């Protein structure tokens, strides 16, 4: 932990520069960097073409709004009000008048240009260090017009990477369970959306209960629990084709599925005769291996990113606690020893931390600890919240939170929330309906 606190203060513009833009991502939103996102400029012909295709009046402005929103939500940046911008977007993209941008206290400036080229969307953008008066980055790419939101996310990823020194997490999606209806009869559907809540799409109809969807490493497949025909089993869904198949067709309930980091196996629990054990299934040859062997509840397994270890929760000590074992099931060690009960361990993409849910004295916490259980840090406390999932760069956790109902049992809601690893920047993630069980994809554009 200490290691990683030190290593991510990145110094930019090392060449002939007397000013530095640095974004210290360990400190959350204490000092967000003032950044000016100039609307991407667009010529009139291109604007009309895109208006016809996408029904957006000015696609350049729309894309820059996505960038602006991403930067704001990250908590690390403070996008400045466009009303204060003095320079026209097209001219700024050619050569910013740095003294103008300096005047409004912008430290970084993003400019760019969109054009319609052979039925495609071509974007170029530039990142400028205002104080140094230098271009930091210039990139151009071409895609189909329908991808315009992703263009905004990719630009944000590039800017984030250049300014923080870490990979971005904006061109990503969230799979989750969309919920509606009374608490006693919730209708649940699988849903997928962009990380910012846009492009929401339901993947199941709500005819059967579905729970705990999780992406595979390439984010093309999802494993989840479905109560199809009242048989709770682990399923696999191909997002592109919509094909679904049972993978956990055991003589009893299979649940709590996740992929191995190489995507070749699914690890899950199988409950039979009052005992839940952890199993793996190789997706290619369907070979099943039993990993735990204990008369207690063993569930919520999650691999370390190198695939060598598995964390899980078990009540073998009397209450639910977090354990780590080798991936063959040997060397089981309890790692949670704080007050309260601990569950839903998930290994961070960096491999150094495990995020978890904790219940203590009637409150639920999302927290992180080192993989040996030391350095426990609670990030957020609430009436009910659980099931953290890591952003692909390991900087943000998404989880869900449920409200306490009133004395008449009314007022229930379930929402997705995110929080920085720092414990700052807690935010509700917008969803069209209630939501739970979020899982964050990998970075879609690598």
């Amino acid at each position: 932990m200490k290691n990683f606190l030190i290593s991510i203060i990145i110094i930019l513009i090392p060449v002939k520069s007397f000013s530095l833009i640095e974004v210290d991502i360990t400190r959350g939103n204490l000092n967000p960097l003032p950044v000016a996102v100039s609307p991407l400029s667009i010529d009139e012909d291109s604007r009309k073409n895109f208006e016809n295709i996408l029904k957006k009046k000015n696609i350049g402005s729309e894309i820059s709004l996505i960038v602006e929103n991403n930067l704001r939500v990250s908590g690390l940046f403070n996008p400045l009000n466009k009303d204060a911008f003095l320079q026209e977007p097209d001219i700024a993209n050619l050569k910013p008048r740095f003294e103008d941008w300096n005047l409004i206290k912008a430290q970084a400036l993003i400019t760019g240009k969109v054009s319609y080229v052979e039925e495609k969307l071509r974007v170029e953008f530039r990142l400028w260090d205002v104080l140094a008066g230098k271009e930091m980055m210039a990139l151009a790419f071409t895609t189909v017009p329908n991808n315009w939101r992703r263009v905004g996310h990719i630009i944000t990823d590039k800017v984030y990477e250049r300014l923080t020194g870490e990979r971005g997490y904006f061109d990503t999606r969230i799979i989750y369970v969309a919920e509606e209806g009374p608490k006693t009869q919730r209708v649940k559907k699988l849903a997928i959306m962009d990380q910012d809540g846009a492009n929401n799409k339901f993947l199941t109809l709500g005819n059967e209960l579905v729970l705990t969807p999780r992406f595979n490493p390439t984010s093309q497949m999802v494993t989840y629990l479905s109560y199809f025909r009242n048989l709770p089993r682990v399923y696999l869904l191909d997002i592109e084709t919509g094909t679904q198949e049972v993978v956990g067709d055991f003589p009893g309930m299979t649940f709590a599925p996740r992929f191995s980091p190489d995507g070749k196996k699914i690890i899950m629990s199988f409950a039979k005769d009052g005992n839940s054990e952890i199993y793996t299934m190789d997706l290619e040859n369907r070979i099943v291996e039993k990993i735990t062997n204990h008369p207690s509840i063993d569930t919520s397994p999650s691999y370390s990113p190198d695939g060598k270890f598995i964390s899980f929760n078990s009540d073998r000590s009397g209450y639910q606690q977090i354990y780590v074992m080798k991936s063959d099931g040997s060397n089981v060690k309890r790692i949670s020893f704080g007050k309260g009960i601990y569950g839903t361990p998930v290994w961070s993409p960096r491999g150094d931390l495990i995020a978890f849910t904790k219940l203590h004295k009637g409150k639920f916490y999302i927290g992180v600890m080192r993989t040996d259980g030391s350095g426990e840090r609670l990030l957020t406390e609430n009436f009910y919240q659980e099931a953290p999932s890591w952003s692909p760069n390991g900087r943000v956790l998404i989880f869900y939170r449920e409200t306490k109902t009133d004395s008449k049992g009314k007022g229930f809601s379930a929402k997705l929330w995110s929080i920085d690893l720092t414990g700052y920047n807690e935010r509700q993630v917008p969803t069209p309906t209630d939501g739970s069980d979020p899982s964050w994809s990998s970075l879609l554009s690598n």
Partner: protein
Amino acid sequence: MKLNKILKNGFLIVVACLALSACATSKKSTGQMQGDVYTGTDTVEYLASGVPDRVFFATNESVLTTASRETLRKQAAWLRKNSKITIVLEGHADERGTREYNLALGERRANAAKDYLMTYGISSDRISVLSYGKERPVDSGSNPLAWSKNRRSVTVKAN
């Protein structure tokens, strides 16, 4: 009549909450709870006259109480008399636990009921088990009495 019942229940909930917050760990009977096991009848349905359909559990527990065993003996007697009937035991947990653990806990509770029925001569062929974890509460309240009603195993006729 109905209002009366609502008021009465409301009052009992308040009493139960007060009693629990006053001494959360002592085995206090409040009329509807013994310790934190539900002993009321509000949510109970009947498989046949005098045969309640469900049993209740303490927090995190799957141990059958004396009352639960009595209910299950009645169910076993009824099942022996009606030998064509098959059943599903639906195990449930309250909302104060993580989703996956609660699925396992519901399964463990339903199996506790199954094991007991089997010791009274009901063949396992006639019993299937289905855990809903915390997905299907009967009471949508966020209070100890509501949670006690939701920690249950319900015997449902399958045919």
